[in-house]
Structure formats: structure tokens, C-alpha cells
């Protein structure tokens, strides 16, 4: 009996050793929330699709989303912006190839950019581009009609695709992509997984992790279990499963800042929110720290500005609203509100209803009462964008250049992302200047003015920036994730 036990133990340790040594050559299994609907390099819309495409394709350059570092070369070796800010010239590297072995040429680059611009899905990111042309065998020039400061970030978004492959077989172009990135497409099982393998011919050298399997696991609890059993080695997780994963020594957690923001939006076209004092009162009345504890398990950065603190243009001098119910009451009194005041309903989508409950409580404490009106998400978006609401709470992402914040503040975007329906000539003009300004310091100053103005007028009552949480196998080595957490498996490796 004893003998069998020892043998069993020996066998166990042997298998463990075997699996440990086999680890170095193992594929990375990444769990994702949803299947990719498409692998089309321009007509995609979800984060999962972008994550997969990021491994398959390279773009001209890589720009970190904080906008604070020099762009890193990828398909383009270098770039140059003309004095007047109208011409962007890229030098294309000679050693890059597609996964079928054909070289990446300037024609492919021009084609990729044109395909991107024509896409309803992504084209708006480079809508200011007027034309693109190949000047010689290694130079591509993009022309603009008016200077547009965030253009460099935009033009570095298109994935570089093979023109020949697209023309040869437009269906396979989508279903069996031939990319230009560090990983090659192997196969895909609709609804369950997608397999990639390292591109041995990659111009930056083959990736250390030999392959990636993306597994579709929609349920947060199941994903947490799969991480613990080792079936999955990397996943973005929900804060609800954080405690059990944190307790597991085989799992590492990374908290990554994002520019997405959770905020209370008030309809400025409706009483009483046309009065700035009422809006300021709302911003003072919300106990942000408590809300973040209750709804995000503490995993969000408190911030009463729409601009995330790591983002270009944010400064520590910016005025922040802090929890002060007495001040809120005083402001409401000053505005002539007789308390308790009935606001009617707080419109909310089902997934944000817990946020609404906390906000309802906080506002009730200062004398603003309301009922919660939960709507199905699409119905909610309909009422939100048409302005058929008084107050709401939601989360939004306006990532990319800080210029993107114009969607929340300028007149042109009333009916889409300007939920407050705020319209102010001075604000429109400030964003316009920031768009044209090519001098970084001056742009930063302009964004500073914009953000202070937004705080003074309490256009929105932002609560904070939720963190993205990644959980992964402790033997996986990953670099520091940039803002937004867009990752490239090329940068990962297994610990020796």
C-alpha cells in the first residue's frame, strides 16, 4: 500500500515537472467575452475584434494611448510632418512581409489607408484625410486640407493589408486573413475559439509565445474558474470575481487605467439642470468614493473630470469636485429649489442600474428625489441620444486623442455623444483651435482651458475612470500595460 502511494506521488511529481518544462513552448490561451463577428481589418466594431486584429496585422506606427511617448516604428520606419501640418510622409520599411511571404509594398499601404477611410465602421478616425499617394518605392504621403493635430494617431490606426489578396479573394480576405503582424491566422471555430501561430518571418523577429488560442467564455464566473484550473492563462476579468482570483497565488492581477468614464449626465435643455448651480450641487452631492466601492469593488479612479488623469491635457491643477452635501444643499437653496424637489425619473440601462441606485440615494440626501426607470439598452440609447430624459448615469469611452472629448462637449455632437446637449460657442471654438494647433504645449494649454470650463459649468458630473482588470498565469511575463490596456502578445513571454 505504502509503495503504491510513493509511486503515485512520484508519478504525480513527474507529470508536474513534465508540464512545467512543456510550458515554455505552450500556446497562450486567452479568454474573451464574445466571439469575433468578423476579422475584416476595417469593418469591425468590437474590442475583441480589435484585440485579435492587433496580433494579426501591424499598422504604420505604434502610438501609446497616453500620447506621451514618441511613436514606435512598425511598417513605417519613420515619419515626417510638413511645416504647415498638411503633409504626413512615411518611410516604409523594406523587410516587412505578409504571412504568405509577399513583401509589404507602398501600394499595399496606400490601399490599406483608402480601404480604412471608406469604411463606415472605422473611416471617421481619418475622415480629415483628403488623399494618400505613394511617391516612390518606400515613401507614402498623406495630404490634409486643413491641419489636424490628432491626425498622426488616426493615421496609425489602419492595419496594413495585402492588396493582392483582397483582389484575389475578397471572402477569404475576411475569413482566412493574411496579415502583416506577429501572428498568423490558423483556424477558427465559430462561437468557440480562434487559433493563431507565431509568424516566423516577422521583421521584428518571431514572437516568444509560439501561438495564441482565443476562447470565448461569456460568463464571468466560468472565466474565473477556467483561470484557476489553468485552462485559460490570460483574461480580462470582472471586478466581481476579483477576491477569489486575488487569493490564488498562481494568478497575477494587473490593474490598468482606462480613459473610459462613468458619469451622471443631466439634460441641460430641461429644468432644473439649465441652472449651473443645480448641476454643481449634483456634482458635490455624489459620494464618489462610496459609489466606486459599492459598484466597482473599489477598482476605479475617482475623478470628477471627464478626462482621465493619464491623458494628454489633464493637469493636477484642475479643480475637482469632492463630496460635500452641505455645499450641495446651499447651492440648491441659492438656485431657489424648494426641497424635497422631485426630479421625476433617472433613466438608466439595465447594466448601470446599480449605479443609479447609489446616485438616487446620494441625491435624496440633499433633497433631490427621483424614481429609477430601467430600460433595455437599445431603448435606453434611443432616449438618451434624442434628449428624452432629465438625468441619467452611464459609462462611456472616448478613447484616442484628447480631441475626442469634443464629442461630449460640442454642438455638432448633440444627438450622438453630447448627452448633456451642451452648446456653447466658446467651447466649440476652443475645440476647433485645439484641432488646428500643431504645437504640443499650446494644445495642452487649450485642453486645460476646455477642461476647466467643463468643471466650472459642471456640464457633466463624472464619477471616475473604471480600471480594466487582467488576470493571468503567474508564469506569464507581460510588460506594463499602457492606458486602455490594448495588448500585443508579441510583448509577452513565459518565465523560464
Amino acid at each position, binding site marked *: 500500500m505504502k509503495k503504491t502511494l510513493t509511486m503515485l506521488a512520484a508519478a504525480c511529481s513527474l507529470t508536474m515537472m513534465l508540464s512545467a518544462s512543456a510550458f515554455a513552448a505552450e500556446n497562450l490561451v486567452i479568454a474573451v467575452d464574445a466571439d469575433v463577428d468578423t476579422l475584416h481589418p476595417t469593418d469591425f466594431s468590437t474590442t475583441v475584434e480589435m484585440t485579435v486584429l492587433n496580433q494579426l496585422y501591424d499598422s504604420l506606427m505604434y502610438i501609446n494611448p497616453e500620447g506621451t511617448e514618441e511613436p514606435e516604428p512598425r511598417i513605417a520606419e519613420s515619419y515626417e510632418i510638413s511645416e504647415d501640418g498638411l503633409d504626413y510622409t512615411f518611410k516604409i520599411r523594406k523587410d516587412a512581409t505578409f504571412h504568405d511571404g509577399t513583401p509589404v509594398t507602398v501600394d499595399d499601404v496606400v490601399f490599406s489607408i483608402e480601404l480604412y477611410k471608406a469604411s463606415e*465602421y472605422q*473611416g471617421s478616425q481619418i475622415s480629415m484625410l483628403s488623399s494618400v499617394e505613394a511617391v516612390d518605392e518606400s515613401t507614402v504621403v498623406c495630404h490634409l486640407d486643413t491641419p489636424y493635430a490628432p491626425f498622426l494617431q488616426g493615421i496609425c490606426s489602419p492595419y496594413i493589408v495585402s492588396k493582392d489578396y483582397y483582389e484575389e479573394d475578397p471572402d477569404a480576405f475576411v475569413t482566412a486573413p493574411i496579415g502583416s503582424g506577429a501572428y498568423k491566422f490558423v483556424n477558427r471555430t465559430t462561437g*468557440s475559439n480562434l487559433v493563431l501561430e507565431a509568424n516566423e518571418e516577422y521583421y521584428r523577429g518571431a514572437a516568444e509565445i509560439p501561438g495564441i488560442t482565443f476562447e470565448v467564455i*461569456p*460568463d464571468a464566473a*466560468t472565466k474565473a474558474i477556467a483561470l484557476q*484550473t489553468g485552462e485559460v492563462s490570460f483574461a480580462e476579468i470582472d471586478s466581481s470575481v476579483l477576491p477569489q482570483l486575488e487569493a490564488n497565488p498562481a494568478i497575477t492581477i494587473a490593474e490598468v487605467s482606462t480613459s473610459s468614464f462613468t458619469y451622471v449626465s443631466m439634460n441641460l435643455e430641461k429644468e432644473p439642470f439649465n441652472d449651473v448651480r443645480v448641476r454643481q450641487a449634483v456634482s458635490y452631492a455624489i459620494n464618489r468614493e462610496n459609489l466606486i466601492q459599492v459598484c466597482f469593488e473599489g477598482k476605479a479612479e475617482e475623478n470628477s473630470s471627464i478626462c482621465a488623469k493619464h491623458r494628454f491635457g489633464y493637469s493636477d491643477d484642475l479643480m475637482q469636485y469632492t463630496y460635500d452635501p452641505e455645499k450641495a444643499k446651499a447651492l440648491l437653496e441659492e438656485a431657489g429649489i424648494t426641497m424635497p424637489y422631485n426630479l421625476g425619473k433617472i433613466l438608466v440601462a439595465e447594466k448601470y442600474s446599480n449605479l443609479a441606485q447609489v446616485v438616487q440615494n446620494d441625491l435624496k440626501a440633499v433633497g433631490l428625489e427621483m424614481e429609477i426607470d430601467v430600460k433595455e*439598452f*437599445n431603448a435606453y440609447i434611443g432616449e438618451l441620444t434624442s434628449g428624452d430624459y432629465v438625468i441619467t448615469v452611464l459609462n462611456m469611452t472616448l478613447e484616442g486623442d484628447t480631441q475626442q472629448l469634443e464629442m461630449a462637449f460640442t454642438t455638432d455632437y448633440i444627438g450622438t455623444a453630447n448627452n448633456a446637449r451642451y452648446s456653447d460657442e466658446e467651447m466649440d471654438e476652443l475645440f476647433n483651435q485645439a484641432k488646428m494647433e500643431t504645437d504640443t504645449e499650446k494644445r495642452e494649454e487649450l485642453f486645460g482651458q476646455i477642461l476647466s470650463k467643463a468643471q466650472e459649468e459642471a456640464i457633466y458630473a463624472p464619477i471616475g475612470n473604471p480600471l480594466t482588470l487582467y488576470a493571468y498565469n503567474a508564469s506569464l511575463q507581460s510588460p506594463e500595460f499602457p492606458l486602455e490596456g490594448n495588448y500585443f502578445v508579441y510583448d509577452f513571454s513565459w518565465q523560464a
Partner: protein
Amino acid sequence: MLPKRPGQECPGNASGAFCGGSYHQVLERIYFMSKYIVKRLLYMIPVLLGVAFLVFAILSLTPGDPGSIILGITAKPEDIAALNAEFGYDQPFFVRFFNYLGDIVFHFNLGTSYSTRQPVMNDILARFPNTLTLAVLSMCVSSIIGISLGILSAVKQYSVLDHVCVVVALVFASMPGFWLGLMLLILFSLKLGWLPSFGAASLKHFILPTLTVSLTSAAGLLRMTRASMLETVRQEYIRTAKAKGASNRRVIWKHALKNALIPVVTSLGGGFGASLGGAIIAETVFAMPGMGTLMTTAIRQKDVPMVMGATLFLAVLFSLVILVVDILYAFLDPRIKAKYQNGGKGRG
């Protein structure tokens, strides 16, 4: 043992001719049966049209359009409009509806999904085998457990076994499916490490989802079999069978069970049809790509062709399953078989 008389083998028989019979009678039976089947198949056409219209109308009445759902809140109105136009979603309701029907009838084309931009049949065929496997496995497991324990429970009424069965059934019947699934996952995948926690790659992956679905439905079947069995054994003809000296086993298996199973088969058929739509909870918990999750995602994205394609596909299957169940009755209950002969007009 008494010599066999016509009708004795078929308790409650209204037409002894079906329990045996000449070559001519067999032919006649086949004729009536096939006439009945053809008639039922023709009935499916208005049913499918009705389903198509209802689902299409409901989808059109719900708020949101595919363009803005796909492109999101920050998209430009002109991009949204362009995308909707590409999908043909800018057309009025009836134009879209009849175009859709026309495509199905004249081109056998269920349409192209708005979100994947691939034929919807690709997705349906990729996922349906998983759903079918899960449905068949769960039905087998749940009927084996449910019916056998139900019979046992009824035969040994008020015994300890009966009480245990009834209580356990009550517990499983009232247990939320997702919770049961999660508990099974924690036990068998996380703690014991015996079974995979997600996916549908091998039969091993189906064990936990099958258990989740069948444990809850077996509970219902058990209760139904037990009740139906108890009612049947109180019938006159059972007393007659016992009086003529038939053994207990023979009375139960030969006389009582066939009659007692009729309502059970009805609920099994309905349940199987419904589970073809996907056991959404099991599919979600165990990350198994099936029809249920396909449809819920499509509804949320307002992917009209996908929702319509999947609904019609299931409606056809469901109708066929119900037809099979109805035919199955005939083998269980000759009274119903007599109905076919009268073209469904006679009373059983």
C-alpha cells in the same frame, strides 16, 4: 392463461382492428397515416408564415436600428445611415418583409447576418450540432432518471424511497439552473479537476451541461410520471387485469405504463422542442456555442436576418418534433390511432 382475444393487448382499445390485422388493413393503415402526415406538413406553411411575420414585426417594433447598435453612440449619423442602407434597413417594413420572404422562397437563402456579414446558415449550422447533442443527451438522461424513479415512486407509494424521490425532485426542480451549473463547475472542474470547465470540443465537455439541464428537468418528469402512474393504477381496467390474475409486474409494465406515459410523452416532446432552442443557461455557464446564445446575442444586436433564420430553422424543427410525438402517441394509444383513420374528425 386464457387464450388471446383481439383487444386484450390494447387496453382501452376502441378499434380492435389495429392490434394485428390482414395485409389489406396494414395498407389501409399506412395510407391513412401518410395522408395524415402530409396534411400536417402542409399545416406547417401557415404556421411558419405566422411565425415569420410575428418575429419580423416584433423586431421592427423594438427600439434601435442595426447601424447605430453596431457603430455605437459616438458614430456619425451619416455612417449609421450608410450602414443601414447597406443592410436594406432603410426600407419600409413591408418591403423588407416581402423581400426577405422572397429570398427564402425563390433563392432558398435565409439571408446575410448584419453583424458577421456572412450567410446566417453558417452560424446556425456551426452551433446547432452542439445544441442538438445537448438536447438529446439531456433528454435521454432526464427521461431515464425521471421516468424510472417516477414509476418506482408510484409503485412504492408512501415508502421511504417515494418520500426521498419526491423531496429530492422538489429540491432540483426549484434550483436555479445557473447556480446548479456553477456548483457542478466548482466541484468537478475546480476542486476535482475531472472535467473541463468550458467549451464543446469533445463529449467530455457535454457531461456537466447535460447534468445541469437534465437534473432540473428530470425532477419535473419524475413528478409527472408518478402522478400519472398513480392515477392510472386506480383505473377499472387495472383492477380487471389484477382480478384475472395477471402478475403485478405484468400489470404495471403491460397495462398501466403505456397509458400513464401519454402525458409524459407530451411533455417530453414539448420539452425537447424547447431545448432545441438551446438551454441558454447551460450554454452561457459552460461557454458552449449553441442556438440559445446565438439568438440572444442576435436579438440584442438587432441582427434581423440572424434572429429570423434561427427562429424559422427552429420553428421547422419544432413542428417536426411535435409531429413525431403525435405519431408516437398512436403506438402508445390506439384510441388516438383511430382518430387518424377518421381523418381526425372522430372522438377518441
